[in-house]
């Protein structure tokens, strides 16, 4: 045993005047931070095990607990942050790749926060969504604009591509069963069903119990092909081919073996307890023409009745790639920005690979218009849409609909401690341990998800009304409704917007 270089990241502060020693914190901490000592008749902590998930703080009946950063600090240096020093210690101790979870926490520019939304004054009226109809329904899919007529002169509508109808323009992004729990999946499925929108199975297959929610399910086919079968494809309202994920462009998924429980192993069709590692590329897709073949294989397998979605991570060449995808038969394109979440990713990749969704979305939308193929494909933006105002800005940049995942997890209790890869989620979300999974009550959680989306929708409608827009179609790509603040000419040019004051 040598010296452990790594101090506790957090300090657990307990107000002993308030603590009644009910020991709920001890019982509920899967990291075994809190413990009771009978000799002292007092609660103590192993604070080095704390991940700041806030479970104990939240349930403490007397508000006796607070978690804060450990005030202990290494000598300050701008170049070598304490974080970097610790990471090197950790790697020196283990010889391993650093793992992280959830979205990129680094201090990169957030372009959502550098764009401002317009409102009507005098020359046209704003519209009050409480008094006038305000529409946020969306259809995703190809829109063929060539009109053919039947012999009687009516429009021939038989040649339409399959469409997804979304009552709310927000869907729940792919999170696999395995990375998140059964109860989390059930909550998402039930919420999507109640809302009339969609949730996404992620790459881990679909548990038999959730086939009943199929009309609101998007099934994902990723490079590992976990859980993919004919029944699975049939169970989706749409099929999503996952080429990449914003949090970890260029690599496949990684589900730690401790999350591969009995049920997860059955659903994924892999042995229990083994790491589920999906390959970095699809081994049947080494180029764009191969993607086309997979798209049409999936369409063939499902009778051309379902839209096929292709999801890519936002990378440097995203506009050209998107253009290729639009010409490859895909109905819907998902662009996932580099701040998107993950259940587990190598830290260096999560924090350094990819580009922001705002820039990727703007350049893809413009590129597809320049190439006159924007009709051929719907665009779903993902990867850190954090609020309804981010959503409005994304629509104005050109998104048809949005995927949210982190906000959905926040709605059901996630406190963004970024420890999903530890598989001991105290909130019952990113874990497969039955005693922890139980902590997420789907009867409560699905209602919170429904509330969240409805609340966002109300706010989107308020902002639309302020702009004098009463249907989301008229906001889509309406970049005149945005102005940049504190952005360079180049950034404005990529976003396709003017600066505030212009």
């Amino acid at each position, binding site marked *: 045993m040598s010296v452990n270089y790594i101090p506790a990241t957090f300090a657990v502060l307990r107000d002993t005047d308030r603590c009644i020693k009910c020991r709920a914190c001890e019982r509920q901490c899967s990291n075994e931070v809190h413990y009771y000592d009978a000799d002292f008749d007092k609660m103590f902590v192993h604070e080095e095990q704390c991940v700041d998930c806030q479970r104990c703080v939240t349930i403490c009946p007397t508000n006796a607990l607070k978690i804060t950063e450990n005030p202990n600090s290494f000598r300050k240096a701008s170049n070598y942050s304490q974080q970097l020093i610790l990471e090197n210690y950790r790697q020196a101790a283990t010889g391993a790749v650093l793992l992280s979870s959830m979205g990129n926490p680094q201090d990169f520019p957030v372009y959502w926060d550098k764009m401002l939304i317009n409102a*009507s004054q005098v*020359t*046209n*009226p704003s*519209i009050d969504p409480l008094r*006038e*109809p305000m*529409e946020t*329904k969306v*259809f995703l899919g190809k*829109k*063929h*604009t*060539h*009109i053919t*007529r039947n012999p009687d002169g*009516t*429009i021939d*509508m038989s040649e*339409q591509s399959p*469409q997804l109808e979304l009552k709310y323009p927000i869907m729940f992004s792919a999170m696999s069963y395995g990375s998140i729990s059964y109860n989390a999946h059930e909550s998402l499925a039930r919420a999507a069903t109640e809302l009339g929108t969609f949730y996404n199975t992620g790459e881990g297959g679909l548990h038999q119990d959730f086939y009943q929610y199929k009309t609101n399910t998007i099934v994902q086919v990723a490079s590992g092909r976990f859980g993919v079968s004919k029944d699975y494809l049939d169970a989706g309202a749409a099929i999503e081919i996952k080429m990449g994920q914003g949090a970890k462009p260029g690599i496949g998924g990684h589900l730690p073996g401790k999350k591969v429980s009995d049920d997860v192993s059955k659903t994924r069709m892999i042995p229990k307890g083994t790491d589920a590692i999906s390959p970095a590329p699809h081994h049947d897709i080494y180029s764009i023409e191969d993607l086309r073949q997979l798209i049409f294989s999936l369409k063939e397998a499902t009778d051309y009745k379902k839209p096929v979605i292709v999801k890519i991570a936002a990378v440097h060449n995203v506009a050209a790639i998107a253009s290729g995808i639009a010409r490859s038969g895909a109905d819907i394109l998902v662009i996932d920005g580099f701040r998107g979440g993950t259940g587990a990713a190598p830290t260096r990749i999560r924090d350094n690979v990819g580009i922001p969704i705002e820039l990727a979305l703007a350049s893809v939308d413009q590129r597809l*218009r320049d190439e*006159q193929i*924007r*009709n051929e494909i719907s665009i779903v933006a993902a990867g850190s849409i954090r609020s309804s105002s981010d959503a409005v800005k994304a629509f104005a940049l*050109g998104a048809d609909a949005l995927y949210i995942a982190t906000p959905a997890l926040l709605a059901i209790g996630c406190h963004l401690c970024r420890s999903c890869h530890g598989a001991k989620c105290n909130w019952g979300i990113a874990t497969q341990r039955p005693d922890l999974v139980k902590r997420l009550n789907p009867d409560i959680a699905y209602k919170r998800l429904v509330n969240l989306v409805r609340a966002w929708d109300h706010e989107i409608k308020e902002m639309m009304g302020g*702009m*004098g*827009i*009463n*249907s989301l*179609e*008229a*906001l*889509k*790509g*309406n*970049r*005149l*409704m945005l102005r940049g603040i504190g952005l360079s000419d180049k950034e404005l040019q990529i976003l396709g917007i003017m600066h505030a004051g212009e």
Partner: protein
Amino acid sequence: MLQKEGAVRIPSGCAITGFISRDGRRITGADAIKSIAVMHDRSNGLGGGFAGYGIYPEYKELYAFHLFFNNNSAREETERFLNEHFDIVNLSRIPTRQVKSITNEPLIWRYFVNPLPTRLAASQLDETEFVTKCVININTTINGAYVFSSGKNMGVFKAVGFPEDVGKFYRLDDYAGYSWTAHGRYPTNTPGWWGGAHPFALLDYTIVHNGEISSYDANRRYIEMFGYKCTLLTDTEVITYIFDFLHRRRNLSLTEIADVIASPFWTTIDAKPTAERERLYYLRNTFASLLITGPFSIILGYSGGLMALNDRLKLRSMVTAEKDDMFFIASEECAIREICPDATGIRAPRGGEAVIAELNEEGRRKCL
């Protein structure tokens, strides 16, 4: 520094009026001037214009191009372009009369042209598409030249000024047509350029519009995918292109176009019988980005008819009336009463309701 129209988007309030003789009787532009003049307070002297249909019966098979030139070199360059692509049958300055309030006039010319058959064949385009491309080409590439009217047997006349002065300036009492529309503009800043006045025209489609659409950039960025170039950044321009695209290029009927650009709300559509519901779903979804929101009242002029349309919430005033073979549309009833005191059937069309008045059989025989 103030920017020219097109470099900046200028919101405007407006007055519009229009009428048609369904029997095809030819009425002078004086009536249009009289009608728009009564709504003087709805414009502020920074733009006025007219469109007359059936005014060039002697040249009715030829495209009548009306152009503004900043100078003679722009004119010469344009004429070179026209000579390469068209047979110019007649050309002249458009006659004007001195009006004190109309100043800074550009060179205003008129050309009656026919596409050169060889050029047309080489382009592999149909004739209307060929003409459209040429018009867009002149407007976007020749500095100081602007085609503001390009249809057959019709013409647009517009300027910076109050509409009644503009009408006088262009001597519209000398023209007679079966239908007229007129526009008085109330822009919120000074455009100072004649091309920015309304009506906006492409081929024989003209639009006069009162409103400020909130969907503008969504509509613009969509329609530009189909080869249009919105150089003026005005609502009227983009609405004209939308009509041209849906009517001429996609063969939608005018009422179908109304179902696209002023579509009923989903709840209304859901309450319709199945076939109608499916049709409306199809149109609205297929052309989702052509839905126009925010206030507008427009009169579309085209060969043989007029169509009036309000936004789906009816956020701008517009009334219609009739008298014998005449059909009237205007922002305010007074504009109709001024030229037809005993007009009947005054009504305000509902939001999104397309009101169409066309030449009857006799009128078509006479005028088309």
